[in-house]
């Protein structure tokens, strides 16, 4: 695996912690976060280890990991943490730093989020039919969940209608502005 310069990685770790409002030394590695994490079985780096990497200034390993994308943002870890270490905020900021260098170790998750936000930008509301269809196309999982479609059509759960915000231009404008702000973070 290509490594970032150690210095950069240490600086990045500090930035991630500062943006998340976390004092890394608050974590004494008890592991309650890993024990309670519902996604931990599929993670390459355990939640406890994620904090450890940042403590050691090894942010590059964290932002290249699958774990930051597999986190479901359920917040079990922080609510069980004896020291209130906001691990979801660390993970979120690690994602932001990964995206800055166009990294996403679980591309399906990145694609899903991109399509979701593109929909919101275009229509102001999420369009489940377009989201699922576009996701299947772009991820190559063409038949995923298609077995449920006839039931949904039959019972009017989904249909061809687009449900859009009237002031969709406003939503688009403010999201464009927010994206610009996020890039500067």
């Amino acid at each position, binding site marked *: 695996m290509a490594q970032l310069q150690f210095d950069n990685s240490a600086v990045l770790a500090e930035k991630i912690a500062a943006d998340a409002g976390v004092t890394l030394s608050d974590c004494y590695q008890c592991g309650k976060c890993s024990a309670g994490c519902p996604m931990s079985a599929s993670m390459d780096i355990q939640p406890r280890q994620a904090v450890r990497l940042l403590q050691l200034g090894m942010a590059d390993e964290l932002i290249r990991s699958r774990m930051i994308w597999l986190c479901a943002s359920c917040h079990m870890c922080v609510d069980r943490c004896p020291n209130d270490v906001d691990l979801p905020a660390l993970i979120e900021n690690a994602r932001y730093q990964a995206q800055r260098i166009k990294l996403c170790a679980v591309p399906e998750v990145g694609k899903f989020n991109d399509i979701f936000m593109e929909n919101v930008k275009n229509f102001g509301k999420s369009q489940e039919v377009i989201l699922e269809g576009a996701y299947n196309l772009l991820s190559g999982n063409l038949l995923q969940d298609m077995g449920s479609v006839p039931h949904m059509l039959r019972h009017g759960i989904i249909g061809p209608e687009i449900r859009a915000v*009237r002031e969709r231009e406003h939503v688009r404008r403010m999201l464009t502005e927010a994206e610009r*702000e*996020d890039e500067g973070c």
Partner: protein
Amino acid sequence: MLRYAYYPGCSMDTTGVTYRISIEYLAKKIGLELMEIPDWNCCGASSAHAKGKWQALALPARNLAIAEKRLPGLDICVPCAACYARLLAATVAIRESAETRSRIEEITGVTVKANANILTLMDVLGTEEGMAACAAAATRKLTGLKVACYYGCLTSRPQAITGIENIESPELMEKIVSLSGVECVDWDFKTECCGGSHQVDAPTAARPLVERIFRNAKSNGAQAIVTACPMCHLNLDMREEEINRKMGTAYDIPVYQFTQLLAVAMGASAKEVGLQKHFYPAFKRLDRTLRKAGTLQ
């Protein structure tokens, strides 16, 4: 008076339709006025905050601003757990920091004070007035049905934002849904995660999350699971048969929105709460319960 600004969220028109129609049914029955926020937009769900902090704040902020202007003085009722979490997170951020607030106002181009309280539908129905109104309307009892109340993540966590005292074992849904006459079992997975959108974008990793929720409900004697979120409901209801098929399990647990049980207890027909729209058959369990309890008219 039971009068609130109402933020339904995008799912209510599609996969959350049974939640929506059962909410509308019971609101009518108990005189709950839900005033929809005009021209509301998506809350950003889990995707906006994965992409950027300001995107995640801007989307809910527009809704808060419209509610303040058009429905002043009303607290905001948000039945979807994910929408609730996003509107609440934005509210807390705006209230806590004047700097955050002015940056949000720059981005959105609207003024936002975030002085309305953000409430789940459980918060609304759990008030003294809400409970009394539900109790008076719930005349048909679902006696004998054992249910596991499933809250998922976002109505209780993160605690720093929700302020819920008991994030491991909340009791509010039990308190409300008991008015329908059901018996709520004690179980361990009340606030475990259903996987959210990872059931679509990371299905192999996320499917076991749903399986273990069914397993724990079943082993604690539940005959049905009750939810308070369109996403939790879809993830459980749509995946149950697939899990049985692929994992060799034999779960036979219909999944209801808590509002469906209340509405049925208030006299709603199967169609009026959309029981036929469920993936896992949901009619028989309630029909049998009502017949046995002698309360089917």
